Protein backbone atom coordinates (compact mmCIF):
# COMPACT_ATOMS: atom_id res chain seq x y z
CA UNK A 1 0.00 0.00 0.00
CA UNK A 2 1.30 3.42 -0.93
CA UNK A 3 0.26 4.77 2.46
CA UNK A 4 2.64 2.44 4.26
CA UNK A 5 5.54 3.51 2.05
CA UNK A 6 4.84 7.17 2.75
CA UNK A 7 4.73 6.59 6.49
CA UNK A 8 8.39 5.57 6.40
CA UNK A 9 9.45 8.74 4.50
CA UNK A 10 11.60 11.21 6.39
CA UNK A 11 9.31 14.03 7.60
CA UNK A 12 11.38 16.73 5.87
CA UNK A 13 10.60 15.12 2.53
CA UNK A 14 6.86 15.14 3.29
CA UNK A 15 4.89 17.83 1.51
CA UNK A 16 1.83 19.45 3.01
CA UNK A 17 -1.11 21.48 1.75
CA UNK A 18 -1.68 23.53 4.86
CA UNK A 19 0.33 24.37 7.94
CA UNK A 20 -0.95 25.23 11.43
CA UNK A 21 1.27 26.56 14.22
CA UNK A 22 -0.34 26.26 17.66
CA UNK A 23 2.78 27.26 19.64
CA UNK A 24 1.80 28.56 23.07
CA UNK A 25 -1.65 26.97 22.93
CA UNK A 26 -2.74 24.59 25.67
CA UNK A 27 -4.58 21.32 25.04
CA UNK A 28 -7.20 20.83 23.75
CA UNK A 29 -6.94 24.04 21.70
CA UNK A 30 -4.49 22.48 19.18
CA UNK A 31 -6.83 19.47 18.74
CA UNK A 32 -9.80 21.79 18.24
CA UNK A 33 -8.00 23.98 15.71
CA UNK A 34 -6.50 21.01 13.85
CA UNK A 35 -9.99 19.48 13.69
CA UNK A 36 -11.38 22.72 12.19
CA UNK A 37 -8.65 22.78 9.48
CA UNK A 38 -9.13 19.08 8.67
CA UNK A 39 -12.85 19.64 8.16
CA UNK A 40 -11.96 22.32 5.60
CA UNK A 41 -9.26 20.35 3.71
CA UNK A 42 -10.07 18.21 0.68
CA UNK A 43 -9.76 14.43 1.10
CA UNK A 44 -6.13 13.34 0.67
CA UNK A 45 -4.67 16.75 1.53
CA UNK A 46 -2.01 16.94 4.25
CA UNK A 47 -1.89 19.20 7.32
CA UNK A 48 1.43 19.99 9.00
CA UNK A 49 0.79 20.83 12.65
CA UNK A 50 3.15 22.41 15.20
CA UNK A 51 2.30 22.09 18.91
CA UNK A 52 4.07 22.98 22.16
CA UNK A 53 1.77 21.20 24.66
CA UNK A 54 3.11 17.67 25.15
CA UNK A 55 -0.45 16.42 25.67
CA UNK A 56 -0.68 16.67 21.87
CA UNK A 57 1.47 13.53 21.58
CA UNK A 58 -1.59 11.61 22.80
CA UNK A 59 -4.38 13.98 21.71
CA UNK A 60 -3.45 14.33 18.03
CA UNK A 61 -3.09 10.58 17.29
CA UNK A 62 -6.46 10.11 19.08
CA UNK A 63 -8.00 12.84 16.92
CA UNK A 64 -6.69 11.17 13.74
CA UNK A 65 -8.04 7.79 14.89
CA UNK A 66 -11.44 9.28 15.75
CA UNK A 67 -11.75 11.08 12.42
CA UNK A 68 -10.27 8.24 10.38
CA UNK A 69 -7.41 10.43 9.15
CA UNK A 70 -3.91 9.09 8.61
CA UNK A 71 -1.05 10.22 10.84
CA UNK A 72 1.84 10.19 8.37
CA UNK A 73 4.62 11.21 10.76
CA UNK A 74 5.32 12.60 14.22
CA UNK A 75 8.46 14.40 15.37
CA UNK A 76 9.03 15.12 19.05
CA UNK A 77 11.64 17.83 19.68
CA UNK A 78 10.87 18.17 23.38
CA UNK A 79 9.65 21.76 23.39
CA UNK A 80 7.82 21.42 20.08
CA UNK A 81 6.07 18.58 18.32
CA UNK A 82 5.38 18.22 14.59
CA UNK A 83 2.58 16.18 13.05
CA UNK A 84 1.70 15.41 9.44
CA UNK A 85 -1.91 14.32 9.02
CA UNK A 86 -3.54 13.24 5.76
CA UNK A 87 -7.27 13.83 5.60
CA UNK A 88 -9.28 10.65 5.07
CA UNK A 89 -10.22 9.99 1.48
Amino acid at each position, binding site marked *: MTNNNERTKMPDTLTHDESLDTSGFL*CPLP*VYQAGQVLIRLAPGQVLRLVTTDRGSLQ*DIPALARQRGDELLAVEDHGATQLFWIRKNA
Partner: protein
Amino acid sequence: MRVFSFLEHTMTTLFEPPILKTDPQVRRFEDVRQLLPDVEQPTPIVRLGRLAAARELYLKLEWLNPFGSIKDRTAAYMLSELLPEMEGRRLIEASSGNTALALAALANLEDIPVTVTIPDGAPIEKRVLLRMLGAEVLETPDDLCPVDLPADGAIALARAIAGSRGGEAYAWTDQYSNRANVRAHYETTGPEVWRQTQGQVRAFVAGFGTCGTISGVGRFLKEQDPSIRIVAVEPNPGHRLPGLKSFAEAKQPEILDQSVIDQVVRIDDETAYSTTLSLFRQEGLMVGPSTGAIVAASLALDDPGLTVAISPDSGFKYASYFAQFLDDQQQRKDEDARHPHP
Protein backbone atom coordinates in the same frame (compact mmCIF):
# COMPACT_ATOMS: atom_id res chain seq x y z
CA MET B 1 -38.59 78.95 11.44
CA ARG B 2 -38.12 75.23 10.80
CA VAL B 3 -34.60 74.93 12.16
CA PHE B 4 -35.49 76.83 15.26
CA SER B 5 -38.55 74.76 16.04
CA PHE B 6 -36.49 71.60 15.62
CA LEU B 7 -33.92 72.96 18.07
CA GLU B 8 -36.61 74.01 20.46
CA HIS B 9 -38.12 70.55 20.34
CA THR B 10 -34.74 68.95 21.04
CA MET B 11 -34.15 71.27 24.00
CA THR B 12 -37.51 70.52 25.56
CA THR B 13 -37.13 66.72 25.14
CA LEU B 14 -33.64 66.94 26.64
CA PHE B 15 -34.64 68.89 29.69
CA GLU B 16 -38.12 67.64 30.41
CA PRO B 17 -38.20 64.64 32.70
CA PRO B 18 -39.66 61.51 31.06
CA ILE B 19 -43.38 61.13 31.65
CA LEU B 20 -43.09 57.47 32.62
CA LYS B 21 -40.67 56.17 35.22
CA THR B 22 -39.85 52.68 36.39
CA ASP B 23 -42.67 51.35 38.54
CA PRO B 24 -42.41 47.67 39.50
CA GLN B 25 -45.97 47.81 40.95
CA VAL B 26 -47.37 48.07 37.42
CA ARG B 27 -44.41 46.14 35.94
CA ARG B 28 -43.08 49.11 33.97
CA PHE B 29 -39.29 49.20 33.56
CA GLU B 30 -36.69 51.38 31.87
CA ASP B 31 -34.14 48.59 31.33
CA VAL B 32 -34.44 44.82 30.87
CA ARG B 33 -31.96 44.28 33.72
CA GLN B 34 -34.53 45.62 36.16
CA LEU B 35 -36.44 42.38 35.50
CA LEU B 36 -33.74 40.34 37.23
CA PRO B 37 -35.32 38.80 40.34
CA ASP B 38 -34.60 39.48 43.99
CA VAL B 39 -36.44 38.99 47.25
CA GLU B 40 -38.73 41.98 46.50
CA GLN B 41 -39.44 40.74 42.98
CA PRO B 42 -39.14 36.94 43.10
CA THR B 43 -39.84 34.43 40.36
CA PRO B 44 -43.18 32.76 41.18
CA ILE B 45 -43.71 29.44 42.93
CA VAL B 46 -46.68 27.40 41.73
CA ARG B 47 -48.25 24.39 43.45
CA LEU B 48 -48.40 21.08 41.57
CA GLY B 49 -52.03 20.45 42.55
CA ARG B 50 -52.74 17.65 40.08
CA LEU B 51 -49.47 15.80 39.59
CA ALA B 52 -48.83 15.85 43.36
CA ALA B 53 -52.31 16.45 44.77
CA ALA B 54 -51.57 14.82 48.12
CA ARG B 55 -48.42 16.88 48.69
CA GLU B 56 -47.50 20.48 49.20
CA LEU B 57 -45.04 20.57 46.32
CA TYR B 58 -44.27 23.93 44.70
CA LEU B 59 -42.27 24.56 41.53
CA LYS B 60 -40.19 27.74 41.28
CA LEU B 61 -40.55 28.95 37.69
CA GLU B 62 -37.13 30.19 36.67
CA TRP B 63 -37.96 30.49 32.97
CA LEU B 64 -39.68 33.74 33.96
CA ASN B 65 -36.25 35.33 34.32
CA PRO B 66 -35.62 37.96 31.60
CA PHE B 67 -33.30 35.75 29.52
CA GLY B 68 -35.21 32.56 30.13
CA SER B 69 -33.52 30.56 32.87
CA ILE B 70 -32.16 30.36 36.40
CA LYS B 71 -28.73 31.15 34.97
CA ASP B 72 -29.71 34.81 34.55
CA ARG B 73 -28.95 35.21 38.24
CA THR B 74 -25.51 33.63 37.94
CA ALA B 75 -24.63 35.52 34.75
CA ALA B 76 -25.63 38.90 36.23
CA TYR B 77 -23.53 38.32 39.37
CA MET B 78 -20.47 37.04 37.47
CA LEU B 79 -20.57 39.82 34.88
CA SER B 80 -21.00 42.66 37.37
CA GLU B 81 -17.95 41.40 39.26
CA LEU B 82 -15.85 41.27 36.07
CA LEU B 83 -17.02 44.60 34.58
CA PRO B 84 -14.12 46.69 35.93
CA GLU B 85 -11.61 44.40 34.09
CA MET B 86 -13.45 44.08 30.77
CA GLU B 87 -11.99 47.02 28.82
CA GLY B 88 -10.88 45.70 25.41
CA ARG B 89 -11.53 42.06 26.34
CA ARG B 90 -13.98 39.29 25.35
CA LEU B 91 -15.95 37.14 27.75
CA ILE B 92 -15.53 33.40 27.39
CA GLU B 93 -17.66 30.74 29.07
CA ALA B 94 -18.36 27.02 28.74
CA SER B 95 -22.08 26.41 28.99
CA SER B 96 -24.78 23.96 28.05
CA GLY B 97 -26.50 27.11 26.77
CA ASN B 98 -28.42 28.88 29.51
CA THR B 99 -25.52 30.67 31.22
CA ALA B 100 -24.19 31.64 27.81
CA LEU B 101 -27.55 33.05 26.68
CA ALA B 102 -27.83 35.24 29.76
CA LEU B 103 -24.18 36.30 29.58
CA ALA B 104 -24.45 37.15 25.88
CA ALA B 105 -27.59 39.23 26.40
CA LEU B 106 -26.14 41.10 29.39
CA ALA B 107 -22.72 41.58 27.77
CA ASN B 108 -24.34 43.04 24.64
CA LEU B 109 -25.80 45.77 26.84
CA GLU B 110 -22.23 46.68 27.88
CA ASP B 111 -20.75 46.31 24.34
CA ILE B 112 -18.69 43.31 25.43
CA PRO B 113 -18.18 40.53 22.84
CA VAL B 114 -18.75 36.92 23.96
CA THR B 115 -17.29 33.54 22.98
CA VAL B 116 -19.14 30.40 24.05
CA THR B 117 -17.86 26.83 24.08
CA ILE B 118 -20.88 24.53 24.00
CA PRO B 119 -21.17 20.73 23.83
CA ASP B 120 -21.85 19.77 20.20
CA GLY B 121 -24.88 17.75 21.34
CA ALA B 122 -26.61 20.80 22.86
CA PRO B 123 -30.06 21.42 21.35
CA ILE B 124 -30.09 23.34 18.07
CA GLU B 125 -32.49 25.89 19.62
CA LYS B 126 -29.84 27.06 22.11
CA ARG B 127 -27.04 27.15 19.53
CA VAL B 128 -29.19 29.27 17.18
CA LEU B 129 -30.35 31.62 19.96
CA LEU B 130 -26.71 32.27 20.87
CA ARG B 131 -25.93 33.13 17.27
CA MET B 132 -29.01 35.38 17.18
CA LEU B 133 -27.50 37.25 20.12
CA GLY B 134 -24.29 37.66 18.13
CA ALA B 135 -22.09 35.38 20.26
CA GLU B 136 -19.18 33.42 18.78
CA VAL B 137 -20.18 29.78 19.27
CA LEU B 138 -17.53 27.01 19.40
CA GLU B 139 -19.22 23.61 19.30
CA THR B 140 -17.13 21.07 21.15
CA PRO B 141 -17.33 17.28 21.40
CA ASP B 142 -17.11 16.05 24.99
CA ASP B 143 -14.23 13.74 24.08
CA LEU B 144 -12.24 16.58 22.47
CA CYS B 145 -9.31 15.90 24.74
CA PRO B 146 -9.26 12.08 24.87
CA VAL B 147 -6.39 11.98 27.38
CA ASP B 148 -7.99 14.43 29.80
CA LEU B 149 -10.68 12.50 31.62
CA PRO B 150 -13.33 13.01 32.90
CA ALA B 151 -14.32 14.28 29.49
CA ASP B 152 -15.82 17.75 29.29
CA GLY B 153 -14.57 19.24 26.05
CA ALA B 154 -16.41 22.56 26.34
CA ILE B 155 -14.89 23.36 29.75
CA ALA B 156 -11.44 22.16 28.66
CA LEU B 157 -11.54 24.34 25.54
CA ALA B 158 -12.65 27.48 27.42
CA ARG B 159 -9.87 26.91 29.96
CA ALA B 160 -7.32 26.39 27.16
CA ILE B 161 -8.34 29.53 25.27
CA ALA B 162 -8.19 31.67 28.42
CA GLY B 163 -4.87 30.12 29.48
CA SER B 164 -3.03 30.08 26.14
CA ARG B 165 -0.89 32.65 24.33
CA GLY B 166 -3.24 35.61 23.71
CA GLY B 167 -5.50 34.48 26.56
CA GLU B 168 -5.23 37.91 28.25
CA ALA B 169 -7.77 39.09 25.67
CA TYR B 170 -10.34 36.80 27.29
CA ALA B 171 -12.07 37.00 30.66
CA TRP B 172 -13.25 33.50 31.62
CA THR B 173 -16.27 33.63 33.93
CA ASP B 174 -15.70 29.95 34.86
CA GLN B 175 -19.10 29.30 36.43
CA TYR B 176 -17.93 25.92 37.77
CA SER B 177 -15.41 27.59 40.11
CA ASN B 178 -16.78 31.12 40.40
CA ARG B 179 -18.01 31.94 43.93
CA ALA B 180 -20.29 34.63 42.45
CA ASN B 181 -22.39 31.75 41.06
CA VAL B 182 -23.07 30.47 44.59
CA ARG B 183 -23.50 34.00 45.95
CA ALA B 184 -26.22 34.77 43.37
CA HIS B 185 -28.33 31.94 44.81
CA TYR B 186 -27.38 32.61 48.43
CA GLU B 187 -28.48 36.25 48.07
CA THR B 188 -31.50 35.89 45.75
CA THR B 189 -32.97 32.40 45.13
CA GLY B 190 -32.56 31.24 48.75
CA PRO B 191 -34.13 34.30 50.43
CA GLU B 192 -36.95 34.22 47.85
CA VAL B 193 -37.83 30.61 48.71
CA TRP B 194 -37.70 31.39 52.44
CA ARG B 195 -39.97 34.42 52.12
CA GLN B 196 -42.38 32.86 49.60
CA THR B 197 -42.98 29.93 51.98
CA GLN B 198 -43.12 32.18 55.08
CA GLY B 199 -40.28 30.11 56.49
CA GLN B 200 -42.38 26.93 56.31
CA VAL B 201 -40.30 25.18 53.65
CA ARG B 202 -39.27 21.65 54.75
CA ALA B 203 -37.38 20.47 51.66
CA PHE B 204 -35.64 22.00 48.67
CA VAL B 205 -34.87 20.08 45.46
CA ALA B 206 -32.49 21.15 42.66
CA GLY B 207 -30.17 19.55 40.11
CA PHE B 208 -26.42 18.99 40.06
CA GLY B 209 -25.05 21.20 37.27
CA THR B 210 -22.46 23.80 38.13
CA CYS B 211 -23.93 23.27 41.63
CA GLY B 212 -24.40 27.01 42.14
CA THR B 213 -28.12 26.60 42.89
CA ILE B 214 -27.89 23.70 45.34
CA SER B 215 -24.85 25.12 47.16
CA GLY B 216 -26.15 28.70 47.44
CA VAL B 217 -29.80 27.98 48.28
CA GLY B 218 -28.76 25.01 50.43
CA ARG B 219 -26.45 27.12 52.55
CA PHE B 220 -29.00 29.93 52.97
CA LEU B 221 -31.81 27.56 54.01
CA LYS B 222 -29.57 25.55 56.38
CA GLU B 223 -28.65 28.83 58.09
CA GLN B 224 -32.33 29.58 58.66
CA ASP B 225 -33.16 26.03 59.84
CA PRO B 226 -30.68 23.16 59.68
CA SER B 227 -33.51 20.60 59.58
CA ILE B 228 -34.65 21.70 56.09
CA ARG B 229 -33.84 18.81 53.74
CA ILE B 230 -31.64 19.70 50.76
CA VAL B 231 -32.03 17.19 47.94
CA ALA B 232 -29.84 17.07 44.82
CA VAL B 233 -30.78 15.40 41.53
CA GLU B 234 -28.18 13.56 39.45
CA PRO B 235 -28.72 12.09 35.97
CA ASN B 236 -27.17 8.86 34.65
CA PRO B 237 -23.96 8.81 32.62
CA GLY B 238 -24.63 9.50 28.93
CA HIS B 239 -27.87 11.38 29.79
CA ARG B 240 -29.65 13.91 27.56
CA LEU B 241 -30.55 16.42 30.26
CA PRO B 242 -28.68 19.65 29.40
CA GLY B 243 -27.65 21.65 32.44
CA LEU B 244 -27.36 18.58 34.66
CA LYS B 245 -24.15 16.65 35.33
CA SER B 246 -23.45 13.06 36.26
CA PHE B 247 -20.35 12.95 38.41
CA ALA B 248 -19.72 9.43 37.15
CA GLU B 249 -18.56 11.12 33.93
CA ALA B 250 -17.95 14.80 34.79
CA LYS B 251 -15.66 16.39 37.37
CA GLN B 252 -17.30 17.68 40.56
CA PRO B 253 -17.30 21.49 40.41
CA GLU B 254 -15.12 23.32 42.91
CA ILE B 255 -18.11 25.32 44.15
CA LEU B 256 -20.14 22.22 45.16
CA ASP B 257 -20.75 22.40 48.92
CA GLN B 258 -21.41 18.77 49.92
CA SER B 259 -21.95 19.78 53.54
CA VAL B 260 -25.41 21.25 52.81
CA ILE B 261 -26.70 18.23 50.84
CA ASP B 262 -28.74 15.62 52.71
CA GLN B 263 -29.63 13.31 49.85
CA VAL B 264 -28.88 12.65 46.16
CA VAL B 265 -31.62 11.15 43.96
CA ARG B 266 -30.66 9.59 40.61
CA ILE B 267 -33.18 9.94 37.77
CA ASP B 268 -32.99 8.28 34.34
CA ASP B 269 -33.80 10.12 31.11
CA GLU B 270 -37.01 8.19 30.42
CA THR B 271 -38.45 9.20 33.83
CA ALA B 272 -37.28 12.82 33.39
CA TYR B 273 -38.79 13.15 29.91
CA SER B 274 -42.11 11.52 30.79
CA THR B 275 -42.43 13.64 33.95
CA THR B 276 -41.78 16.73 31.80
CA LEU B 277 -44.68 15.72 29.57
CA SER B 278 -46.88 15.17 32.64
CA LEU B 279 -46.07 18.74 33.73
CA PHE B 280 -47.03 20.00 30.26
CA ARG B 281 -50.24 17.96 30.08
CA GLN B 282 -51.50 17.95 33.66
CA GLU B 283 -50.26 21.24 35.06
CA GLY B 284 -49.98 23.48 31.99
CA LEU B 285 -46.35 24.02 32.92
CA MET B 286 -44.21 24.03 29.76
CA VAL B 287 -40.92 23.22 31.44
CA GLY B 288 -37.58 21.87 30.23
CA PRO B 289 -36.34 18.30 30.76
CA SER B 290 -34.18 19.07 33.82
CA THR B 291 -37.40 20.24 35.55
CA GLY B 292 -38.87 16.82 34.76
CA ALA B 293 -35.90 15.18 36.49
CA ILE B 294 -36.19 17.49 39.52
CA VAL B 295 -39.95 16.94 39.89
CA ALA B 296 -39.55 13.15 39.48
CA ALA B 297 -36.96 13.23 42.28
CA SER B 298 -39.30 15.30 44.49
CA LEU B 299 -42.07 12.74 43.98
CA ALA B 300 -39.69 9.90 44.86
CA LEU B 301 -39.10 11.33 48.37
CA ASP B 302 -41.05 10.18 51.41
CA ASP B 303 -43.28 13.23 51.73
CA PRO B 304 -41.12 15.74 53.62
CA GLY B 305 -43.90 18.37 53.89
CA LEU B 306 -43.81 21.73 52.12
CA THR B 307 -41.29 21.29 49.31
CA VAL B 308 -39.90 23.76 46.79
CA ALA B 309 -38.43 22.28 43.60
CA ILE B 310 -36.55 24.33 41.02
CA SER B 311 -37.67 24.58 37.41
CA PRO B 312 -34.47 25.87 35.76
CA ASP B 313 -36.01 26.73 32.37
CA SER B 314 -38.86 26.22 29.89
CA GLY B 315 -39.35 23.49 27.31
CA PHE B 316 -39.15 25.75 24.25
CA LYS B 317 -35.40 25.34 23.82
CA TYR B 318 -35.73 21.53 23.77
CA ALA B 319 -38.44 21.05 21.15
CA SER B 320 -35.96 19.18 18.92
CA TYR B 321 -35.09 16.75 21.75
CA PHE B 322 -38.77 16.13 22.47
CA ALA B 323 -39.55 15.63 18.78
CA GLN B 324 -37.23 12.63 18.93
CA PHE B 325 -38.56 11.41 22.29
CA LEU B 326 -42.17 11.58 21.08
CA ASP B 327 -41.31 9.81 17.81
CA ASP B 328 -39.50 7.02 19.70
CA GLN B 329 -42.42 6.72 22.11
CA GLN B 330 -44.88 6.44 19.20
CA GLN B 331 -42.70 3.85 17.51
CA ARG B 332 -42.60 1.74 20.69
CA LYS B 333 -46.39 1.98 20.95
CA ASP B 334 -46.83 0.93 17.33
CA GLU B 335 -44.49 -2.03 17.84
CA ASP B 336 -46.33 -3.11 21.00
CA ALA B 337 -49.61 -2.97 19.06
CA ARG B 338 -48.15 -5.23 16.35
CA HIS B 339 -46.56 -7.69 18.81
CA PRO B 340 -48.75 -7.62 21.92
CA HIS B 341 -47.11 -9.01 25.04
CA PRO B 342 -48.92 -12.06 26.45
